Structure formats: structure tokens, C-alpha cells
């Protein structure tokens, strides 16, 4: 069993008297890719926001360091499902990436080291050519990739991706798969992917957590992704579809 990076103990989230998560207890293994799956409204994004400390929760969330449970969050990279922002803002991709890392105000120019780091992250995700483009003029897929570059430029210990493949075009999907394969090979980044696209899950995840307000099932991908479990989480019309020999398989369509 791999070392644990994040441990959730009886985590519940209630918003306006509606329970979004109920007594979630689970562990996320360190240095592995964990997929968080479940139908719409299952509380996947809520769980991510609770881990980030953005949404108040009951229960405990621990981050494990050298076997010790700590409540202080390590550096986390986060890619939200959708970024609502003012699209008319004159902010370039490079501005966007240096915003969080650089203390010197951007109106005094970039710090060389921060600029280099941002460019390196953009290069790693294959979007360096977008550096002078305004973020409001990016397509959905381009913005997702820029967000991913922003997340990894923080050199996080944990990377939380909320529906990373949503809105990504074919070439973007290939680049995303390459990135996942590299993360998997290097093995020092703990990654949690929220997805209802089971192709991403079956292609890369080593650990799977099925969520529907509470944990339905969890464990290694082959054991968890059984037709019975999928049916229990998504309902009777869902199933796994595999096409070709690609690492990334085509999406599951649940009707």
C-alpha cells in the first residue's frame, strides 16, 4: 500500500441546509494519480474545494508529511472546471502565470526568474506560443492548458484537476495525456483528477474513489472499475467503452 498524502475523516459539507457531502472518509495515495468519479451532483467539486479550504466543512482533512498528520496545507496546484472571469481584462497568459508567483507589481515588469519559470511551465504543457495572448481571447481548451501550466508552475506537492479534459480539443487531449503519462512515470506528484469521463480514469488513474455524496467504493482502478460498481454509481445505463489501443480511450457516454 502506497504512503498516504491526504486523509479525509468523516468530512461533511452542507450548503443552505442541503448536504453536498456526508461523512466522507478516504485516503489519497502519495505520488499516484487518483480519480474521483461519480455522477453530476455527486459532490466531486465540493470535495476538491474542501481539500483546498475554500468551502467550510465538518470532519477532518489531514495532509501527511513523514507519516505525521498535519492540517497545514502543502503547496497545491488547482485547475478549476471553469474559470469565470472578466474576459475583457487586458491580461496576457504570461501576466496570468506570474501573478501568483511574483511579489513585484506587474506594472514594474517581470522578475527574470519568475518569467523563466512561467515560460518553462507553458513549454511543458505545450502552450508557450500563447504567452502574449490575452487570457480572455483563449478558447476553452487553451485556457484549460494555461490553467494547468499555472498550477504546475507553483511546483505543487499536490495537483487537483477538476474535469481537466472538458472543452479540450483533440491535440489538447493528446498533450494532456502526455503530461499524465509523464507525471505517472516520475511519480513524485500526488494528483487528483475529477472526471466523469471514464476514458481518462481508465487510461491513467491508479487509484479510484467513487463518490455519490458519500464514498461508494474505492481502491485500485482494476478492482473498482467493474461493471457492477459503475452501475451502482452512475445508474443502470452506464458502462465502460474502450476504442483502439491508445493510452487515452474514448469517452464513456452515459445516457
Amino acid at each position, binding site marked *: 500500500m502506497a504512503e498516504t498524502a491526504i486523509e479525509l475523516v468523516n468530512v461533511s459539507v452542507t450548503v*443552505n441546509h442541503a448536504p453536498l457531502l456526508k461523512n466522507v472518509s478516504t485516503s489519497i495515495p502519495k505520488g499516484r494519480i487518483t480519480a474521483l468519479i461519480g455522477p453530476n451532483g455527486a459532490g466531486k467539486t465540493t470535495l476538491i*474545494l474542501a481539500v*483546498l*479550504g*475554500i468551502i467550510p466543512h465538518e470532519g477532518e482533512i489531514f495532509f501527511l508529511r513523514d507519516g505525521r498528520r498535519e492540517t497545514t*496545507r502543502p*503547496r*497545491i496546484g*488547482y485547475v*478549476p472546471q471553469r*474559470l*469565470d*472571469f*472578466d474576459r*475583457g*481584462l*487586458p*491580461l*496576457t497568459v504570461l*501576466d*496570468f502565470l*506570474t*501573478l*501568483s508567483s*511574483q*511579489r513585484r*507589481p*506587474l*506594472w*514594474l*515588469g517581470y522578475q527574470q526568474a519568475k518569467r523563466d519559470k512561467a515560460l518553462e511551465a507553458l513549454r511543458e504543457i505545450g502552450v508557450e506560443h500563447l504567452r502574449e495572448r*490575452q487570457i480572455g481571447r483563449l478558447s476553452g481548451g487553451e485556457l484549460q492548458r494555461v490553467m494547468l501550466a499555472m498550477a504546475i508552475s*507553483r511546483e505543487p506537492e499536490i495537483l487537483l484537476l477538476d474535469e481537466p479534459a472538458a472543452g479540450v480539443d483533440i491535440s489538447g487531449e493528446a498533450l494532456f495525456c502526455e503530461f499524465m503519462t509523464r507525471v505517472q512515470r516520475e511519480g513524485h506528484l500526488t494528483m487528483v483528477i475529477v472526471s466523469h469521463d471514464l476514458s481518462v480514469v481508465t487510461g491513467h488513474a491508479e487509484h479510484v474513489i467513487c463518490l455519490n455524496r458519500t464514498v461508494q467504493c474505492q481502491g485500485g482502478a482494476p478492482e473498482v472499475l467493474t461493471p457492477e460498481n459503475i452501475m451502482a454509481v452512475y445508474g443502470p445505463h452506464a458502462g465502460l467503452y474502450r476504442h483502439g489501443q491508445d493510452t487515452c480511450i474514448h469517452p464513456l457516454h452515459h445516457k
Partner: protein
Amino acid sequence: MESLFAIIYSFLDTVLPFAWAASLFMKRAFLEIMLITPLCAIVGIQVVNSRMAFFSDAISHSAFTGIALGLLLSINPLLTMVVFGVLVALGIAKFKTRSDLPMDTIIGVFFAATIALGIAIISTRKGLSQTLSSFLFGDVLTIAEMEIAVTFALFAVILIFIALSYNRLLLTGINEPLARSQDIPVNIYNYIFAIILAVVVTMGIRAIGILLITALLIVPPASARNVSRNVRQMFWYSLVFAWVSGIAGLVISFYTDIATGASIILVASLCFLLTFIISLVRR
């Protein structure tokens, strides 16, 4: 302080050998405008990028009640105006974290309540309305040296804060959850910015007036946005448009007898129109 101002006046006589800058009251007005217009622009960039124009309008109008309270309680109205403005800003910011109502609804409630309180006070003391009218339109030509010194101190403190937190404030304005995920203490920044905004707005009222102070905050940054391609350009263009509007407005008001606040905002609006046309041509 008098000797310091004497040196500044003599310096202005050398660099501004124009008829409009000859009198002492115009020199003081010039100094105040050189400080308050960029201050409003710097704060205004965040107001525009975070869609806080209505918030700023509510604070400027709350000044009306702050002044009325000062006059009623025989406390310096400039002081009660700033304190009341800060309290209203903090009240809105606190309410926002505790309520599911849309932000503009919360501001609308505060706006209505403070104005109603102001009118209630004035209606009981008829003599107050005349004093209040000078705050409605502002009067930079009667600004005192002490007020210029306070604006300068404010300018220095706010510039330091903005320089240290500009990038984080901008990220907070872009998307709060994203900023929180990057360990930015969003609530603290929101409260501090609300206080700064309230102080700048209420200080600016002396020069520009309650009715037009929000325009000085948003029009120069909005003009800058029309022609900027990145964050640096937006910042520097905002400053340039603010200074140009301020000084041109002051000179125009000297030669035409138009109220200074109004002429500044008219020049700023002209800048906006020109930059908007440029942005249309560029597309």
C-alpha cells in the same frame, strides 16, 4: 510645513509660468489634483477589474450622511465623512461574506439606508443643506495646505500597499476561488481594499464632489483598458489619463468658470470616447 509649501510654490512658479498657475489657490488646487487623480486611478484599476463601481458609488453617497452626522454632532465633518464611509464599506464587505444575496442587492440596501439616514438628519436641521451642497460638487479651489499634506501621506501609504499587493489583488479580482487556492487571504485583502477605497473616495470628495468621485475612479482606468494589451499598459495609461484629465480640467475650469470637478470628468470622458474609437479601429 509653511516653509515647505513656500519652497513648493516657488518651484511651481518656475516650472509653470502660466497665468492660470499664478495664484496661490490654483497652486494648491494643482498640487491636490496631482495627488488625488493618480491615487483614484491606482485604486480605480482594481474597482474596474473587480466590477466594484456601484460599491464605490454607495460609499461616496454615504459621505453625504457622514458629513450630516458631523454637522449634527459638532464634530469635524471631514472626519465623520471618512469614518462613516469606512464603516459602510466594511459593513458591505462583512455582509457579503454572510449573505447569499447578490452583491449589487446588498450594496443597494446599504446605499438606500445611508441616504435615507442622511436625508432624515438634514430634514430636521434645515441649515445643514447649504453646507452639504459644497460637498455634492466638490471645491478643489478652496483646498487647504493641511488637506494637501494629508492627501500626500495617504498617497504614500496606499502606493506602498498597492505595490506590495497589486498582483494578489488582481488575481482576487479575476477569480476568488482561484486566488484562495493559491493561499491568498482573500477576505483580508477584500477588507483592506474596502477601507482604502472608502478613504480615497471620501478624501476625493473635497476636490471632485460626491456626485462625480466614482467617475474619477473608473473613467481613467476604463479608458486605459480600451487601449491596453497587458497589465503594465493598463496601469501606466490609467495614471496618464488621470493626470491629463485632472490638469486639463483644472486649466479649463480656470478659463471658463466651469466647476473644476465637472471639467475634470468631462476631459476624462473625452479621453474615454477617443480610446473607445481607437479600440474599435484596432479590431
